[in-house]
């Protein structure tokens, strides 16, 4: 592997980091009830693998460093689980996590580039892949080897603009672009399959000219290995990793609820869930 992370016993490190990220995300939600907790819990292992697995190049003290890899969190509502990671890595102070959604904080319910480490304005769905394709094209034209990652939700794939970008990225052979689909099976009002069934997703992506792999998005080893393989692919195609996840992962009440996107966990529930995870 070209990355600093060596795998093997190291996956225990990534697993324990994922537990920590989930706990810290829940703690943020306990005092910032406006945050979308279910959407943020499904992508914990994805963020963990990217940031702690050595897949992303970044400099916390210089977030705009041109040598960084780019990550666009197009499913902006689910980005709260990235706050603890960025704080832990030194993009900003850990104490800021206690001020999410509070007066004067730069950490809102949905992050914007006012947060160190966030590339783009998020919150409106369907923009990230096209913007990421433009960035990937620019990096190629400039002869830079950096990679662009775009995280979307499966519900976000309802937006037509995503598919415009899919065609563009494949046509222009943007093999420095990785799309990560947090396929957490739910939109706002229902399970995705009841709203607009987008399966078979891997076959659709493949038909659009992408390399597509379907994995268990809560197995941090699988997430790491698939993203690593995507970055090493020599197919000249853009890569998509379909991370099969569960919206609200770790909070049993949310996992089975089609309305989990708009559900909150009370501070008491958060304490119980965290106690269970630490037991």
């Amino acid at each position: 592997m070209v990355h600093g992370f060596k795998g093997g016993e190291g996956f225990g490190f990534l697993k324990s980091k994922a537990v920590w990220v989930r706990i810290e995300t829940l703690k943020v939600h306990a005092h910032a009830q406006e945050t979308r907790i279910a959407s943020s819990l499904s992508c914990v292992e994805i963020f963990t693998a990217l940031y702690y697995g050595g897949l992303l190049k970044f400099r916390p003290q210089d977030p705009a460093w041109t040598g960084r890899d780019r990550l666009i969190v197009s499913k902006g509502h689910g980005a709260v689980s990235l706050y603890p990671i960025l704080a832990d890595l030194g993009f900003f102070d850990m104490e800021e996590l206690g001020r999410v959604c509070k007066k004067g904080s730069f950490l809102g319910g949905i992050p914007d580039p006012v947060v160190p480490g966030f590339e783009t304005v998020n919150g409106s769905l369907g923009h990230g892949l096209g913007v990421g394709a433009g960035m990937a094209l620019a990096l190629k034209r400039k002869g830079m080897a950096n990679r662009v990652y775009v995280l979307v939700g499966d519900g976000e794939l309802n937006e037509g603009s995503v598919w415009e970008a899919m065609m563009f990225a494949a046509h222009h052979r943007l093999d420095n672009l990785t799309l990560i689909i947090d396929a957490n099976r739910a939109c706002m009002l229902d399970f995705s399959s009841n709203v607009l069934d987008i399966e078979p997703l891997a076959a659709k992506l493949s038909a659009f000219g992408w390399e597509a792999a379907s994995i268990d998005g809560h197995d941090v080893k699988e997430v790491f290995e698939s993203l690593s393989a995507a970055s090493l692919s020599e197919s000249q195609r853009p890569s998509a990793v379909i991370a099969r996840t569960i919206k609200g992962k770790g909070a049993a009440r949310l996992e089975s609820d089609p309305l989990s996107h708009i559900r909150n966990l009370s501070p008491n529930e958060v304490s119980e869930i965290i106690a269970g995870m630490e037991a």
Partner: protein
Amino acid sequence: MNAKKGVMRDVFLERLYGLMSTDEEIFILSADFGSPRLDAIKRDFADRFINVGIAEQNLINVATGLAIEGFKVYAYAIAPFLTMRAYEQIRVNLALQGQLRKMNVNLVGVGAGLGYDVSGPTHHCLEDLGIMRMLPNIAVLSPSDWELAGQLADYTATNDGVKYLRFEGKPVNRIYDGPVKMAECFTELKRGDDICLVSTGFMTHRAIEAASILEKDNIRPGLIDLFMLSPFDTDRFIDAVKGYRTIVTIEEGFIGRGGLDTLVSAALSRTAIRTMSMGFEGGYVFDIGDRDYLHRLKGLDASSIAAKVSQALQGA
């Protein structure tokens, strides 16, 4: 005034071609919309031109990505589709993001107003001045002749920010002879008595025609060509028109809905100057015919404009 005709996009793209040979940061995207001058760019700068296809939303998103990475991007398309199909992409990725990040993105829309006359209301562009002016962090530029359009190539390449360029699609006469300072927002083409016609884009040619009709009746209106609607230098404008009793705005767009007329009446609200607006009212234009015919139908031909100005003066 030099009457030589020219096409805005051709002159603009020709000058952009010249800039591209020395400025490697210029990148042009088109949403399947062309020009012979664009063919030359495609041929000679193949690595910095892409036709993204009939996909205006992706046009804006890809332009954003390129601009974030430091390219000076030109997104070229038919005006109504560029501004209205992709309005939310423009809002989120350019207006919102433009407040936080340095970007140089230039939206070049061709076919303002009734430029695509017989193609009907989907191709008419009568809302763009209002909706683009509404967005913070986006400059709105509406040149009246090809010389000004040509000067916008250098202006846009050397000034960061997000800009919307509203181009007439058909050949137009030349109005300007020398360099124009864009930040001045408007040019007083002629000083007049009592009344001044303030127009933008193609309608400045109509205003010039209307003024010559009025001059035969010894009415000498002032003429102002307003080419930058946002940001707007209100103080300079008030200073330029303070001797007039009446200002008539003339635009090839809906009136009373945020366009040129709204800009001017808001600017003059702290003065005693009376305003009158001419443009399209009563909804979309489904009538078939060329632009001259449609203008006559809607009272926007030079004779109708002159007659309305004349009446307004008698009533004053």
